[in-house]
């Protein structure tokens, strides 16, 4: 069978279960395509082809014994900020270029238990700080739809690999839009679950109160399948909630009649690309056709403060989270001195890239004596307001719909020297992290030949309704079936 790499999880699983295809065949097909296109896309940080084929063989045995879960034997890619025992986990940083974790992240444990087949670790912006993967210390990933454009970030490698069929699905992490924005740029589905839904144990921390792991997939059904597998309480992550995990695939009924869909006006921002606006307007019409009640008056008035609050809160937490990289225990270590302090400072000077240093400085400043109240505390209070905005909106709406990003993918290098412009590409996604609610980006058309992402926002732990709405829209539109011609 040709083009196995183009399958979704549910399609692949059907074939594997019926033994029409083996996991080894499927994995070979994925690896073959990966090798063919990744020299152009450059989504992968590290291939794990050998162990992938071993896992595939083990998965085939499990399938033969009738012990197959839906992810068994299905190839996947992991963002390189999730710890994989015995496999380098670089976080896109020179600091961790040779770091080999002695343990698996919680989500990796779960995937391994399901006999998933890990084919690669994905490229990313250094320590997940960025919106384009240009901040990777090693190389920039290219958008499979237009190779001179960025794939978005920070999970740009994960999103590009799914769009380019280098994998069946991938995991990303999202602190301010790092799953949804690249999913939008690459025309795939990317979900940031509710904060506390998926364990962060083993996810290299960027901003602990905002980080969340989520799936990047080819359709919404796959997204629900992966969420089923990775969600749930983990006693090693005290911020995961002890709630049961429903079968999210059962929520995908396609029936959204009467569903109250809010389109918050603050998200139809100035500076939004006309093609993006057009796609959103078309989506609204589509919802009405599907019987949903669209409310265009709903307001999240504090949205305009989101960006500023985010760029205080996230860097502040990051400044502490990244303090452990001191050249003592692991990672890059500057040794050409006898001074302990000089070694530590130079390790961090040479081990971190510019954006990481910028954010460490910003966070250190916002927390420092004399500025804490004006910056950090103020941002935390604004966080309360933003959260309240969402609570209020969800009194009258079941889901909210916004563009994922004000623009489609931009050119590589276009914003690289202007941090403020770069930060603006997350303006629609980061309030969702601030509030801790779930958000998913799905393909909603094209502008200038590049995918437009549509973001759905749900209530806390409202992933079922969220995915039901996204799925109904997806099934009524052709966008998710379109594939880039990589050239």
């Amino acid at each position, binding site marked *: 069978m040709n083009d196995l790499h183009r399958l979704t999880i549910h399609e692949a699983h059907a074939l594997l279960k019926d033994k029409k295809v083996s996991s080894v065949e499927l994995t070979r097909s994925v690896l073959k395509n990966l090798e063919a296109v990744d020299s152009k896309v450059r989504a992968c940080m590290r291939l794990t082809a050998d162990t992938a084929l071993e896992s595939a063989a083990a998965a085939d045995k499990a399938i033969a014994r009738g012990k197959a879960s839906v992810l068994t034997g299905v190839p996947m890619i992991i963002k390189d900020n999730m710890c994989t025992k015995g496999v380098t986990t670089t976080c896109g940083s020179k600091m961790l270029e*040779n*770091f*080999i974790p*002695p343990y698996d992240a919680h989500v990796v444990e779960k995937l391994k238990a399901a006999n998933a087949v890990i084919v690669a670790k994905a490229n990313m912006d250094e320590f997940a700080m960025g919106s384009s993967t240009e901040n990777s210390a090693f190389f920039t990933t290219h958008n499979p739809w237009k190779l001179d454009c960025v794939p978005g970030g920070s999970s740009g490698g994960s999103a590009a690999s799914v769009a380019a069929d280098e994998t069946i699905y991938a995991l990303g992490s999202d602190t301010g839009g790092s799953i949804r924005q690249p999913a939008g740029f690459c025309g795939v589905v990317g979900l940031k679950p*509710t*904060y*506390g839904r998926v364990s962060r144990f083993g996810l290299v921390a960027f901003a602990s*109160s905002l980080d969340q792991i989520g799936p990047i997939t080819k359709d919404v059904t796959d997204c629900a399948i992966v969420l089923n597998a990775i969600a749930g309480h983990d*006693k090693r992550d*005290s*911020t995961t*909630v002890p709630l049961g995990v429903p079968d999210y695939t059962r929520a995908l009924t396609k029936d959204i009649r009467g569903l109250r869909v809010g389109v918050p006006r603050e998200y139809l921002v100035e500076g939004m690309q006309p093609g993006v606006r057009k796609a959103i307007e078309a989506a609204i019409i589509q919802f009405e056709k599907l019987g949903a009640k669209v409310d265009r008056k709903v307001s999240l008035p*504090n949205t*305009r403060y989101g*960006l*500023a*609050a985010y*760029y*205080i809160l996230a860097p502040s937490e990051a400044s502490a989270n990244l*303090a452990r990289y*001191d050249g*003592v225990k*692991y*990672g*890059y*270590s500057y*040794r050409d*001195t*006898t001074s*302990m*302090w*000089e070694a*530590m*400072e*130079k390790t*961090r*000077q040479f081990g971190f890239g510019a954006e990481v*240093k*910028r954010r*460490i*400085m*910003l966070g*250190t*400043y916002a927390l*420092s004596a004399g500025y804490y109240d004006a*910056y950090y505390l*103020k*941002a*935390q*209070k*604004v*966080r*309360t*307001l933003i*959260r309240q905005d969402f609570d209020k909106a969800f009194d009258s709406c079941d889901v909210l719909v916004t563009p994922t990003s004000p623009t489609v993918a931009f050119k590589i290098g276009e914003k690289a020297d202007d*941090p*403020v412009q770069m930060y603006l590409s997350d303006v629609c996604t980061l309030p969702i992290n*601030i*509030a*801790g609610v779930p958000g998913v980006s799905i393909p909603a058309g094209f502008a200038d030949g590049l995918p437009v992402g549509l973001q759905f926002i749900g209530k806390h732990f409202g992933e079922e309704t969220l995915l039901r709405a996204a799925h109904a829209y997806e099934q009524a539109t052709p966008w998710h079936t379109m594939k880039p011609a990589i050239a």
Partner: protein
Amino acid sequence: MQLTDEEVRHIALLARLGISDAEVEKFRNQLSSILENMDILQQVDTSGLEPTSQSVALENIYREDETGPSLPVTEVLSNAPAQEDNSLKVNAVLE
């Protein structure tokens, strides 16, 4: 908010980031420009509001006081930049 060179150097010192003169210049400009965008927050009336530091309202999440496995010492040191006698080795800490 315009930062001075001294402030930039002080922040770098607190963060234990080595910083070249060129970086001082660059970060001063960039951070100042970012901080200007933060000034919008000062317009918000936050009186009477509690700060939010976590978005999930959990409380009293404990681990029972029981022991679990530790790593073999070889794994503790497997990524160590320098080691001696089963310990990490660093430049003299006493100055």
